[in-house]
């Protein structure tokens, strides 16, 4: 349950570029989303993941295509890294028909059956028991796959967290619970919401193998996630991984951030996972300046393409309003 030591395994240049690309894509995509929000192209709630990218990138690289993923309402990064087309995600945030949820979900409800991405769930801790059920189905159907469920530390104060942990341990189902501990449940700090701030102990209470990791360090997250995923696969039992991280942006677009000091944010920014990972790659000489610039240019184009695509997308006709309230049956 100690901090997982930093990986010393060298990355292949190709793998390094891919991971860096994902981190930068998530960052730039969200910055663009914030811009488009202020331009009123995106409405509703918009929760940004900026600062936490190493968690999604580090954990999801440990998964396979057949695994299930459930995330929270701060899930743009997970959706991008999982492989949902950026254009379809942007279109979803625009509320357009071509969005990954036909525009019906918006920023908080990205869904994609092809990548087995089960949301985008906006009731805190509401999706944890579903993750248990998905894993239960896999177990019953003897499918060799796991279910990865992301949630914040705020969810761990909910009864639903404890019910899900209990059931997962009781039924011995393959769930990788990933707590993204960004220290704030909306605007209330961890120390004001949890009596026990060593969060991984809560997994231990259910007899679930638990670990925690520096969520600002991509390589550390990768290693912890690889180990956790491997444990889940090999045992068929749940694992609880706490990634200690920090969000640089406000909780949502409409947040004055009265609950934390600017200096605290600045302090955390010194540990920004993207420059950290970039410096590491430079030092290890697996990435050149030119390659980095190429990634930046490519990401910029991807993000712009996503916006351009979303701009051209259509609105679902109002006549379709009640569609998918119930399944469409073949008559």
């Amino acid at each position, binding site marked *: 349950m100690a901090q997982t030591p930093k990986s010393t395994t060298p990355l292949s240049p190709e793998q390094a570029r891919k991971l860096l690309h994902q981190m930068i894509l998530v960052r730039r995509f969200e910055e663009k989303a914030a811009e488009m929000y202020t331009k009123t192209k995106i409405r509703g709630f918009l929760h940004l993941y900026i600062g936490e990218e190493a968690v999604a990138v580090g954990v999801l690289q440990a998964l396979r295509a057949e695994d*299930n993923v459930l995330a929270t309402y701060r899930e743009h990064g997970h959706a991008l890294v999982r492989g949902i087309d950026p254009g379809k995600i942007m279109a979803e945030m625009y509320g357009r028909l071509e*969005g*990954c*949820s*036909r*525009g*019906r*979900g918006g920023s908080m*409800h990205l*869904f*994609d*059956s092809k990548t087995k991405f*089960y*949301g*985008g*769930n906006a*009731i805190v801790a*509401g*999706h*944890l*028991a*579903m*993750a*248990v*059920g*998905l*894993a*239960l*189905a*896999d177990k*019953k*159907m003897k499918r060799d796959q796991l*279910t990865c469920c992301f949630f914040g530390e705020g969810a761990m104060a909910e*009864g*639903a967290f404890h*019910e*899900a942990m*209990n*059931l997962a341990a*009781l*039924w011995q189902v393959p769930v990788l619970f990933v707590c993204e501990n960004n220290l704030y449940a909306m605007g209330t700090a961890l120390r004001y919401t949890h009596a026990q701030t060593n969060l991984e102990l809560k997994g231990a209470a259910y007899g679930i193998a638990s670990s925690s990791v520096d969520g600002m360090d991509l390589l550390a997250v990768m290693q912890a996630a690889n180990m956790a995923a491997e444990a889940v696969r090999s045992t068929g039992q749940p694992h609880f991984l706490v990634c200690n991280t920090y969000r640089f942006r406000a909780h949502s677009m409409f947040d004055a951030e009265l609950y934390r000091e600017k200096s605290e944010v600045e302090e955390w920014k010194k540990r920004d996972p993207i420059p950290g990972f970039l410096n590491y790659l430079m030092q290890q000489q697996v990435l050149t300046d030119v390659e980095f610039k190429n990634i930046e240019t490519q990401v910029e184009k991807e993000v712009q393409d996503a916006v351009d695509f979303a701009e051209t997308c259509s609105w679902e006709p109002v006549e379709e309003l009640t*569609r*998918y*309230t*119930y*399944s*469409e*049956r073949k008559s």
Partner: protein
Amino acid sequence: MLTYRECLKQAIQEALQGDERVFLLGEDVGRYGGAFAVSKNLLQEFGPERILDTPLSEAGFVGAGIGAALGGMRPIVEIMTVNFSLLALDQIANNAATLLHMSGGQFNVPLVIRMSAGIGKQLAAQHSHSWEPLFAHLPGLRILSAGTHQDARYMLAPALLDPDPVIIFEYTSLLNLEKELSEAADAVDISKASVRREGKDISLITYGTGVYKALEAAEELATAGIEAEVLDLRILRPLDDDTIMASVSKTNRALLVEDASRSVSISSEVSTRIMEKCFYELDAPVARLCGAEVPIPYPKHLEDAAVPQPAQIVSMVKKILQHD
């Protein structure tokens, strides 16, 4: 002759036998044999993989049922009684009912939730709820009410075939009641209300425990020369307007009967629809007999007074028909 309990059990047995993906989970469904002995011996018959005891964890196991349904299983989730269902209401209302729509049609939830409901055993306020209206309020759910032995026996199969979440209300007070099952009818169309008795003078529109009460009342009314039609709504969401309107158009009068308390009830909705769609067929104002607006009390005489009784149905019908 079969008890209502036996009907429920046979339905579950049949479902478990017919589809490997079906499994039953809930509190005390296995080793205990079901809180109301509905699933007695099923654990022995089907094993712990198919009959899954859960902790007292409604949000957890209902959520797990949703997840299992998403994962391709056909879970039957038993919430011991409706009284505990609110612990799982977030799962039902925010997940089961919304996922299909919110995902733009990508993820449907083929889940069946059974819960025992209603009044009648002196269980007092926290264990006597009739919350069908509460769940019938939610788009995305199909709400069924098994008011007869026939439906207790044959409603589960079509519910499991439904691609979307279905909640079946069963009734504690009917468990020991014995009835003959008609051999002809088996498959239940879970989109249609059912006329349980034909009549021309008035439509008694009801569901759940109201069905046998209305049939009893209709029997007595027949001795007075009044032919009451008994319409079992059976599907509380989405309501089967066609059958309701056909009945009211035939009898031109309607008395709505339910145990749930009157305000914002199923009968509120049915009454409104009759007014909207059938106003010019009405020869009398739509009338209602509903539960009293009170937490259900413990003493038998007060409990009886809190919900409609057949004698009240009889006298109300006679009043509507100006029958001396």
